[in-house]
């Protein structure tokens, strides 16, 4: 086992790295959303095709909504209808 692998197998160290990553992730999210609101006001770059695109932080908002909608709706359809046991076609 190499030095690198030993570091990755150490649960305490991994937990610490995870915690740090999480914090930076939330900081990153805030920066991205802010940039999306502020930068177009400053530079007047690009021209949206639709009025809803002018909503503050439209991309971020729609990303979150899309992601949650996809997971929830797909799982609902799957549970109610589409998902079957793995040997469904063999029996």
């Amino acid at each position, binding site marked *: 086992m190499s030095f690198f*692998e030993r570091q*990755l*197998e150490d649960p305490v160290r991994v937990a610490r790295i995870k915690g740090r990553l999480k914090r930076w*992730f939330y900081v*990153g*999210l805030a920066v*991205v*959303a802010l*940039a*999306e609101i502020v*930068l*177009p006001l400053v*530079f007047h*770059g*690009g*021209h*949206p*095709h*639709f009025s*809803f*695109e002018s909503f503050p*932080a*439209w*991309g*971020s*908002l*729609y*990303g*979150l909504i*899309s*992601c*949650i*909608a*996809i*997971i*929830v*709706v*797909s*799982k609902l*359809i*799957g549970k109610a*209808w*589409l*998902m*079957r*046991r*793995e040997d*469904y*076609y063999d029996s």
Partner: protein
Amino acid sequence: MTLEWVHPGLLLILGAWVLPWLEGRVKRVAMLALPGAALVVCWLMTPGTYGVVRFLGQELVFGRVDPLSLVFCYVFSLMAFLGMVYALHVEDDSQHVAALTYAGAALGVTLAGDLLTLYVFWELLAISSVLLVLRGGERSAVAAGFRYLLVHVFGGLLLLAGIVLHWSQTGSLAFGDMGAFSGGVAWTLILVAFLLNAAVPPLGAWLPDAYPEATVTGAIFLTAFTTKSAVYVLIRGFAGTELLVWLGAFMAVYGVVYAVLENDARRLLAFHIISQVGYMVCGVGIGTALATNGATAHAFAHILYKGLLFMGAGAVLQMTGARKLSEMGGLYKTMPITLGLYMVGAFAISAVPLFSGFVSKSMVISAAGEGHRAVIFLMLTLASAGTFLHTGLKLPYYMFFGKDSGLRTTEPPRNMLVAMGLAAAACVVIGVFPNVLYRHLPHAVEYVPYTLQHVTSTLGLLSFTVLGFFLLLRQLDPERTISLDTDWFYRRGLAPFVTLAARGLARLESGVVGEIYEFVMRRPVLGAASLLRKFDTLVVDAAAVGVARSTRTLSQRLKTAVSGHAQHYGLLMAAGFLALVALAMLAL
């Protein structure tokens, strides 16, 4: 066919048959030289009409070279090369011949200027590719391979029917924009056949059924050629068909929904082929210069990054034998290079700025925006988030991170890593320098991908998708299930007919047809064979044995004459000389 023009597809199809005769290093060089040569031939082609053959009073055009066919030829031959690099370690000639034939058929479809030539290469696509599924080895692969073949034979028949009808109505086999025949039966048949190969639901269930069953290396070729040659013919014949806008947008979302439910890694990626081809079909339907440029650019970028993604999942499958996400996890420790290269493909398909998907997918979405199609725009953007959710987050999370499965392995063979590296490099180059791709598109490009608004909103969309992913992570845990699709109709729905066939038709076959066959064919053939064998042992063998025996006797005799004493030879020579002199004197 003129000599000054070489058909790159025929080069691959005929050249492939050299491989079984070669061994070792020479074979590996030839495996790369063939697609390499095809790539060079494509690169040197200039627009024009080549390879015109008169057949049955019709002109068959094997080489319609124009900007649209050229850009598809480039990417098809490039992908054939990358696929062969990835498959270099495989010791199975049948797969190599099939893969090169398959790539050649895709080039043939692209260069075909008439419907009959198109049809021939279209059928070759199906026949050559099915071998890559069948060689997958497992029982399920054989079953899926035959289903794949049957579906494509059905599609081929629709195409043939459409072509014959179109020919009889118009008297022409030329293949161009079909808009003038819109709504006719022939138009519909041809369109349905094209949509079947483009895997448009409800005709697309064959794709996620068959691709994940294929061999590790065969799947790379499968992802590239069938659906994208279908996109090419759709652009050529059906640009601006309104139905395609909605089918395409539906497809983009459909693939994403099924990907949520999927557990098999390569099947998840297969659903995302459907989703991505949805953007192209939608672009074809919108039909403006920007939209068809977008469909073409996205096909180009897609072939490269989807090949890369399948290479990554294939590397994991090859090294661990695991194909389901629920069996993987923790592989980043032992396959970090594979993870890194896979992520380049994942960023490219998710349209992260500086990767190829960003400059191609956004052309189609912008075309929807320019056409003021708000619903389509929202559907395509939603599918973008879904693409990142699965290919960029769910799959790498459960494959490489997640709960450690205890699997410890190594990186794949070097040639596989090299192929992935080359594909990854292509994804980045296109993303950073979009003009490399844009200047080969069929229409002049005014579109600018890197605007402030586009970059910030894309980053927002993607990073908040990550947030949604971690919020609902428990919901996404892979479950050991499969999902129903329209293949149900021919896998379960037809079961009563199978029973009927087994009772009626099979009995008729074995009882009546079999008996007749036994009487008419098998007995005479066996009788003739036994007669021939008797003739062989009695006459041919005896003759051979006789010749051998007499030769041996003769040589035994000759052996005793050779004494090895010089004086004997001298005596013999003198006697012979005297005899010659006597003969000469008598003759005088």
